[in-house]
């Protein structure tokens, strides 16, 4: 295996979408290189002189040199991205890293997607994949929650999500909001409305860890099976490739054993605060 720090590639920002006041989607084209990424994987995104952050793919184009990252500006590196990265900027990219959603293995089954907040970003490539290969899957349910209507990402695509044949696209916000016509409550409360064959459904879930804990509980109550629930976890990451130790979750390295895990394999760890 090669030295991961040598693998930094240059990407140029070719499109920019402001999703919310604090979240932007950047379309990045690699200069002189390509990568084969799959939904659920991530890149280490580097800003010169500041540092690197793990960011999931929020869209993967077929071309191999173009993909999207949807980034929330929260701390040092992501703020530097907000301040200094714009159309035409060059950004460092290492990846793809990690094990993504087992999307190929679940063909033929019903699929349920549960996303909370920015946790929907790594699920978007899954949605796109399901749309593209619609006939390979059973019923599709997409559950997506945000704090308020302004916090939703990819609103410009909602129309196409709601037109997927034989599917449900359910939205929730945490508290009542003027003009809101969908569900009010947590995204995990939408689980009871899902229209799927519970026993034969694969669930892909990503969001804050508390949300996923509650989500799993509700799924199990409805009879979903433990080994068909997949979660994407988040930990502090510094290398992205199993070297630095930062991302350990029990004995697993989230960066290389995950970030997507089968619930039945992490059940004991997930139950413990701060493991």
């Amino acid at each position, binding site marked *: 295996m090669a030295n991961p*720090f040598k693998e930094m590639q240059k990407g140029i920002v070719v499109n920019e979408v402001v999703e919310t006041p604090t979240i932007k989607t950047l379309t990045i084209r690699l200069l002189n290189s390509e990568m084969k990424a799959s939904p659920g994987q991530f890149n280490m995104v580097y800003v010169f002189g500041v540092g690197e952050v793990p960011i999931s793919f929020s869209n993967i184009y077929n071309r191999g040199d173009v993909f999207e990252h949807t980034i929330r500006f*929260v*701390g040092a590196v992501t703020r530097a991205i907000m301040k200094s990265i714009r159309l035409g900027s060059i950004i460092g990219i290492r990846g793809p890293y990690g094990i993504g959603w087992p999307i190929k293995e679940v063909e033929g089954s019903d699929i349920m997607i549960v996303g909370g907040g920015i946790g929907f970003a790594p699920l978007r490539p899954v949605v796109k994949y399901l749309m593209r290969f619609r006939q390979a899957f059973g019923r599709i349910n997409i559950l997506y929650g945000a704090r308020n209507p302004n916090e939703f990402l990819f609103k410009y695509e909602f129309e196409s999500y709601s037109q997927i044949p034989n599917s449900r696209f359910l939205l929730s916000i945490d508290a009542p909001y003027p003009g809101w016509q969908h569900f009010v409550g947590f995204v995990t409360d939408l689980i009871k409305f899902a229209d799927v064959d519970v026993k034969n459904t694969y669930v892909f879930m990503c969001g804050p860890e508390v949300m996923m804990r509650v989500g799993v509980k509700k799924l199990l109550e409805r009879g979903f099976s433990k080994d068909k629930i997949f979660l994407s976890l988040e930990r*502090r990451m*510094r290398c992205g490739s199993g070297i*630095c*130790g930062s991302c350990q979750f029990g004995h697993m390295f989230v960066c290389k054993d995950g970030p997507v895990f089968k619930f039945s394999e992490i059940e004991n760890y997930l139950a413990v605060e*701060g493991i």
Partner: protein
Amino acid sequence: MLYKGNEEDVLKVYESVKSIGIVYGYKKSDNEIKFDFISGASELPLDVTTTQRPGYYRINAGFGFVHSFQSPKNFLYPPRTDIAIVTENLYVEVLENNIKSVVLFGVKPCDLAAIRVFDELFASNFNPYYFNRRRGIAGIVVEECLYPSETCFCGSVGTGPDVTDGFDLAFARIDRDFVLFKVGSSFGKIIVNKLRLERANESDVGVYRKLVEEAKKKTSIGISVEDMQKALSISIPNEHLWRKLSEKCLGCANCNMVCPTCFCTEIVDEIENDRSRRIAQWIGCLSYIYGLVAGGHFRKELYTRYRHFVLHKFLFYPKQTGLLGCVGCGRCIVWCPVGIDIRETIKSVVNEYGEKHG
């Protein structure tokens, strides 16, 4: 096979390995003992002894030095390693940090065990910076510990006080005029032949074995590894217990820095003119910033960080490497400013869960 010699022969071994490459090991340096490049025999800590207790370390003139706050980790995986230079237009020059032909001299059995842990860990999680240096090691000479410190518990975790494999030559100092040499490889055999050492006779070997047995007993805490692991794994959700066990902890991460198997690393960028130097440096899981992320923290409470340290050594490393992550060196006990004793932690957990819950 054991051979008999004396302190002079230890010095001769040092001179002999010097011809093979650069020698790294424990050395006297001012009033400290460091793990570093040894430039001459006078730097070897053969005439000093250490007193080690929880939160206490003193060096005095004497015989039977154990180890220091540093370990082979300081050489194999240094506290700061330059990994790359990046230019503003993102051209990356990778700094590989190669070394060639090094002999580790006088490392302890627990150190050897720690190197083995790193070998396994980094074999599955390929780490170029470790392996570039590891590959440069041409030989390992071990000093067995017949007179361990009060804080040593290698006997409990099966890493000492003697060694059986994974080294080239080992020596055990019984006293100044009586040193036994153990051959661990053909390279070790060549050195022994060059020194024209005699084979040890039965009574010499008897004296040695007796001292090994005594040291083993002294360094045992009387709990089997299986019992430790069983109790620890049941203890995980017991927040109350772990809060109590970590009550005195300051979160200073000294224990991480001195532990020969702690490997966590952060990567920092340091700007110099128009380039950025990327540096990998140690970071400890006990420190607050370790799991700190924007808008939150994965192990916010100190008890969860202390628990992670202990669980990692005893439960997670074995799953990651097949080996226990704690080699019983006792460094974390000695260098903890408040004397937190991992042996006491283990005992408390076993007391809580051992007998009562099977």
